[in-house]
């Protein structure tokens, strides 16, 4: 069957069961967009390419299916860079399709030319510049295979403009033969046996679980292992929701803004069972002091994560779910009762706390959002104080309900990510919790939610500062607030209204509940502007490069 390059792209997407793409048109993708017009492929038009790529990322995180993005050459492609890096750091499967100038012009500094495969080399799992029409179907099959298997990640395909119009023979391969790519799924039996033997002997074992549990769909196995072995669990930001919040042995998040119980359990554990997590510096603090007495077992699908940041005693390379299933099959419980009692006492005696007095406190807003969402919401966040308060005070019970840029820490991620999640789940409650600073990094997407009448509920935790940076300036730079004031911000309620969305505001405690209820009951997009205490800090806090048990604050 003869097809043009543009027709092939749509045929490949159809074969991969892609039913929606996110994008922004331009000169080098005119032919491709003409084909979208003709075929009626569902396309969500963002108002900036960064919005499109974060939306595709939010779609992928919420649904588990790869997100697909279209953008034009040059500035269209470079505007994607932050979103691609965000997905790469958190191992999110994306297929990014960029237009490129026509083949005879490549390398001539033609209008809107950028070497996007060169630029994205270190932030994609793999990328392609399609040079011949015959390669196109194979490249798409490879791209989808690479993005969605092994350690997942973004894959970019650069399509020259003239190639989109060229005809070629189309046959979509049923599978990709990629010689240099063979992910390991099954864990080594001997290593699993060793891990089980150590686990049986451990008196103070702890599970430290991350985003790998979510991407391999291993949350049920994780809970079962914790229950069978009576092993407490702490989950990282990206692992949040893989253990129900109210599970008695769940200790919350570890690290810089982690709970007392999680950080002290890591410090005292004699065995740390690490599952799909990567010893990020925000989790470990000073690495030499991290889990000093523990035998470290590390289960990860990516062999390069083993031993990257910390020496591991028992590595198991494989798919987290398959390894956990095998462990469960052969599992024998150890003696952990005393340890569980101790950990539960920490949890009961040293919970996260704040004082609701004076100004409206941001933590209270998060708690109210949680209470009124009934535990069913998908929550997307930006990056900063509101993100940490969300991780601390919102009760996540299911995987894929917290969408947050953990690795790259991208401001402006949350709102477009919420759009992607709402596209994936039109009937679910999707809440974007943002800061007044970070929301302004992609506030143009208000047009997108109005355009498609996506009922995303935005909650701006408005403290009139770049709050997290201000907090560090307060704590480590003697209160010199260098350029962290957000003077000049718009009236967010009127901003929402200008786009045709609803805007609501709460400045006092008693207004918070009614505003949230009204927003959640409203059928369309709503922005809520919560004016909170400008000087509230995220506590507890571990200063960078110190031990995670040297925790500052959070006592009252």
């Amino acid at each position, binding site marked *: 069957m003869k097809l043009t390059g543009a027709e092939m792209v749509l045929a490949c997407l159809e074969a991969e069961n892609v039913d929606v793409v996110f994008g922004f048109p331009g000169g080098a993708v005119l032919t491709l967009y003409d084909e979208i017009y003709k075929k009626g492929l569902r396309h969500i038009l963002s108002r900036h390419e960064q919005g499109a790529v974060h939306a595709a990322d939010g779609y992928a995180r919420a649904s588990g299916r790869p997100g697909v993005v279209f953008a034009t050459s040059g500035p269209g492609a470079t505007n994607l860079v932050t979103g691609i890096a965000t997905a790469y750091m958190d191992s999110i499967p994306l297929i990014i399709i960029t237009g490129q100038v026509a083949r005879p012009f490549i390398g001539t500094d033609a209008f809107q030319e950028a070497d996007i*495969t*060169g630029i994205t*080399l*270190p932030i994609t*799992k*793999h990328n392609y*510049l399609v*040079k011949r029409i015959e390669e196109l179907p194979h490249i798409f099959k490879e791209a989808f295979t*690479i993005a969605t298997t092994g350690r997942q990640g973004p894959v970019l395909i650069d399509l020259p403009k003239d190639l989109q119009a060229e005809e070629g023979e189309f046959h979509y391969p049923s599978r990709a033969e*990629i*010689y*240099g*790519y*063979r992910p390991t799924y099954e864990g080594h039996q001997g290593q699993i046996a060793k891990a089980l033997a150590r686990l049986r002997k451990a008196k103070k074992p702890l599970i430290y679980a991350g985003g790998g549990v979510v991407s391999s769909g291993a949350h049920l196995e994780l809970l079962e292992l914790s229950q069978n072995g009576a092993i407490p669990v702490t989950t990282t930001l990206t692992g949040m929701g893989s253990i129900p919040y109210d599970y008695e042995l769940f200790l919350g998040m570890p690290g810089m803004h982690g709970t007392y119980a999680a950080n002290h359990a890591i410090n005292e554990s004699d065995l740390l069972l690490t599952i799909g997590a990567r010893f990020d510096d925000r989790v470990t603090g000073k690495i030499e002091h991290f889990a000093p007495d523990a035998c470290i077992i590390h289960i990860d699908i*990516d*062999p*390069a994560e*083993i*031993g*990257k940041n910390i020496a591991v005693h028992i590595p198991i390379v494989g798919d987290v779910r398959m390894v956990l299933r095998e462990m469960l099959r052969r599992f024998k419980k150890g003696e952990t009762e005393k340890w569980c009692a101790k950990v539960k006492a920490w949890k009961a005696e040293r919970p996260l706390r704040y004082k609701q007095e004076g100004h409206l406190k941001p933590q209270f807003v998060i708690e109210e959002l949680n209470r009124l969402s009934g535990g069913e919401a998908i929550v997307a966040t930006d990056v900063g104080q509101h993100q940490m308060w969300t991780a601390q005070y919102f009760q996540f019970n299911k995987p894929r309900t917290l969408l947050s840029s953990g690795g790259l820490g991208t401001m402006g991620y949350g709102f477009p990510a919420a759009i992607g999640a709402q596209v994936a789940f039109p009937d679910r409650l999707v809440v974007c919790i943002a800061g007044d600073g970070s929301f302004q990094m992609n506030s143009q997407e208000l047009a997108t939610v109005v355009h498609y009448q996506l009922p995303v509920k935005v909650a701006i935790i408005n403290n009139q500062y770049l709050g997290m940076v201000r907090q560090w300036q307060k704590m480590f730079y003697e209160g010199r607030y260098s350029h962290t004031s957000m003077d000049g911000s718009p009236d967010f309620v009127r901003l929402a209204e200008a786009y045709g969305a609803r805007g609501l505001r709460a400045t006092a405690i008693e207004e918070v509940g009614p505003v949230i209820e009204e927003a959640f009951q409203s059928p369309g997009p709503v922005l809520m502007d919560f004016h909170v205490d400008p000087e509230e800090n995220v506590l507890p806090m571990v200063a960078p490069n110190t031990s995670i048990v040297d925790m500052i604050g959070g006592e009252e």
Partner: protein
Amino acid sequence: MGKRVLAILVEDRPGVLTRVSGLFSRRGYNIQNIAVGRTMEPGISRMTVTVDADPLTVEQIVKQLNKQINVLKISDLTDEPSVGRELLLVKVKAEPDKRGDIQQMARTFRARIIDLSPDSMIVEVTGNNEKLEAFLLMMQEFGIKEIASTGKVALFRGNKLIRETRN
């Protein structure tokens, strides 16, 4: 720290050299030298990379390299019996009265004169790094005008091979 010699089999695709060298630079390690050439298998090239790094770093680099889709196989030749050679071209000042001395020196190092002009000559020498350094030192007394050298290429001794994963 110490010199490690890695042999890397890669698919012969555009950008593959950038993918490999980029991984070294991103982690802050300089490639001391690199040689790229063909193998007996069409479509597969062999890179030989010499890098100055401790074994743990090299292990991490090897793991990261293995994640590259176009990288097929990596072997560390450093601690195994292997032979490695570099090629060096030296353009040295050679007034008529010095030519004999240079030729004699070249013979000692089993080097060859491959070009001669009224006041300079080009000498070609192959060997391991120490030998080439020693040769350069000797040439300095005549006055070196310019040098060009290849990266090291290396093979395991005996029957051991680096097999391609493609069959």
